């Protein structure tokens, strides 16, 4: 455990520099954590809030608290911003604590029960919930499941029952409008992705984004090309995406 080190999560250089100056003056060693955070162990993490992500101010404290509770349960997560609120785990940047060492010592760990201050930005927890919920205009998992189910059936037809791809295409893929479902999936993905930067699980989201780009040519071609379906390994890629998303949902949504 690094007793004087402090991890700082901030989307803004000015805020980081300010925190660094103030904390260094109090003999701490602040480190900027590029997000998602490295596996560095600190007694304290300061989260600038709300974070400016994807052209929007986003309230992320509750998610980061869950992340640290799972990975570093004894660390103390302290928010800092311009909210005029007194809280054991919040530093008002316009009213810097007289004794910041004492303030940090008195802050509560992520494993203790406390509610973050009202940050004022987009509630990313709600956004994440809508992303994962089974139905609704914004659910990504819903449309992903539908595409996955159709492609699984298509592979079963071809591999188990030796049905020709042209027939599978005409009777199943075209009929179920899979190309337009793919477009819907992409539209929803593009809508969400920028909001999830600077969150603990963003590395996974970046990998998923890369995977979607890799298999896109099959869908872009209207799903008519069997070779693309097989060579790009579309079904397995979508299954992996589903599994990755389920891991995130288990940790952060429920």
């Amino acid at each position, binding site marked *: 455990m690094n007793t004087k080190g402090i991890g700082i999560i901030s989307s803004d250089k000015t805020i980081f520099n300010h925190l660094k100056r103030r904390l260094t003056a109090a003999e701490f060693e602040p480190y900027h954590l590029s997000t998602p955070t490295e596996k560095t162990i600190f007694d304290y993490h300061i989260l600038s809030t709300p974070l400016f992500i994807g052209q*929007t101010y986003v309230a992320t404290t509750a998610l980061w608290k869950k992340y640290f509770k799972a990975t570093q349960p004894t660390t103390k997560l302290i928010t800092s911003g311009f909210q005029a609120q007194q809280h054991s785990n919040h530093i008002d940047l*316009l009213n810097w604590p007289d004794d910041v060492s004492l303030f940090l010592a008195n802050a509560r760990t992520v494993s203790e029960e406390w509610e973050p201050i009202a940050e004022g930005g987009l509630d990313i927890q709600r956004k994440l919930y809508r992303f994962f919920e089974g139905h609704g*205009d914004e659910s990504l998992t819903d449309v992903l499941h539908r595409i996955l189910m159709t492609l699984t059936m298509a592979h079963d037809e071809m591999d188990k029952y030796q049905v020709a791809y042209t027939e599978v295409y005409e009777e199943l893929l075209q009929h179920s409008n899979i190309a337009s479902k793919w477009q819907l999936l992409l*539209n929803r993905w593009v809508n969400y992705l920028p909001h999830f930067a600077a969150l603990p699980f963003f590395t996974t989201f970046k990998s998923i984004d890369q995977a979607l*780009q890799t298999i896109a040519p099959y869908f872009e071609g209207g799903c008519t090309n069997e070779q693309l379906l097989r060579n790009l390994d579309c079904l397995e890629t979508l299954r992996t995406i589903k599994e990755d998303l389920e891991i995130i949902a288990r940790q952060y949504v429920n």
Partner: protein
Amino acid sequence: MNTARTMIIVWSWKHGGLTATHDEWSTDSDINDKLIRADIPFTSTAIGLLRQMVEAEGLDRSVYLFLHRRHGYSQKAISQILNSLSDFQQSGGVVRSFLFGEGGDYIYIANNHRGLLGTKGTFSAKLASPYHEKDQLVSAIVRQEEKLVKSVHFNAVWQHYSYDFKAKIFELREDLFVAFLPFLDEEPLNSSVLYAFLQREENQLLFLRLLSFIGKIRKGTALENTLRSFEQTQKRSFFFDDCQENLKAVYGVQEGRLYEELVMFIKTHLFVHDQTVDLRQLRKQFDVLLRNMPELAYT
């Protein structure tokens, strides 16, 4: 807020085939939503025409009136239209009015793939995508012949503009305090120092937003053009020219007054020579205004 919703969008629809002054579209959802396309340049008769269109929607619908700046609409036009609807609003009618055009407005598909306005008076536009080699055609229409737009586009635009005023004020507050952070070590702060800081090239956007907030950007000026080009490149809305009139008309007299008090504070503390600036007081005034706007800043 009423659940039935109407958008009246004044835009260059004639380029896209509108032959009358206006027509009506529905959405593919169960909700009783309506989109009215109108192509009405701002003239003395436009105010009466738009008033009639809003009032025709009745008291049980919420109406969002979108006005294209290039059709001649401005802060003054919004003020006149909302004033003409004051009886309607006092009877319980709900109407908000937004200026858009030439910038980074959310209503355009080019800025937001769930937008409504495409190119040349249509509901569709081509967009580049990292997932496709070719540009993708994004359309907000379900079926042209049935005059049916996609509810997901209608909902996204409606939702965004429901929070737009508060989000813009909130973002200005945040960005202003972040910018002033380096000066906290030098308290008490001096207005001349902060003003000089705001005028630096790297702070130009923040300075222009602040000028727009206090009503100091006039139509047709270089300042307006510069802020507009920031909107275009950043695909965000920075102008406050539709904000103050709506605050008075939609939220109420008190909210309009709080806005004016904040504007006055900025004018008399930041935009004057050699004054002491109390950032905590500035924050307090921002916060009182934001607290009096009951919705969230984002959803």
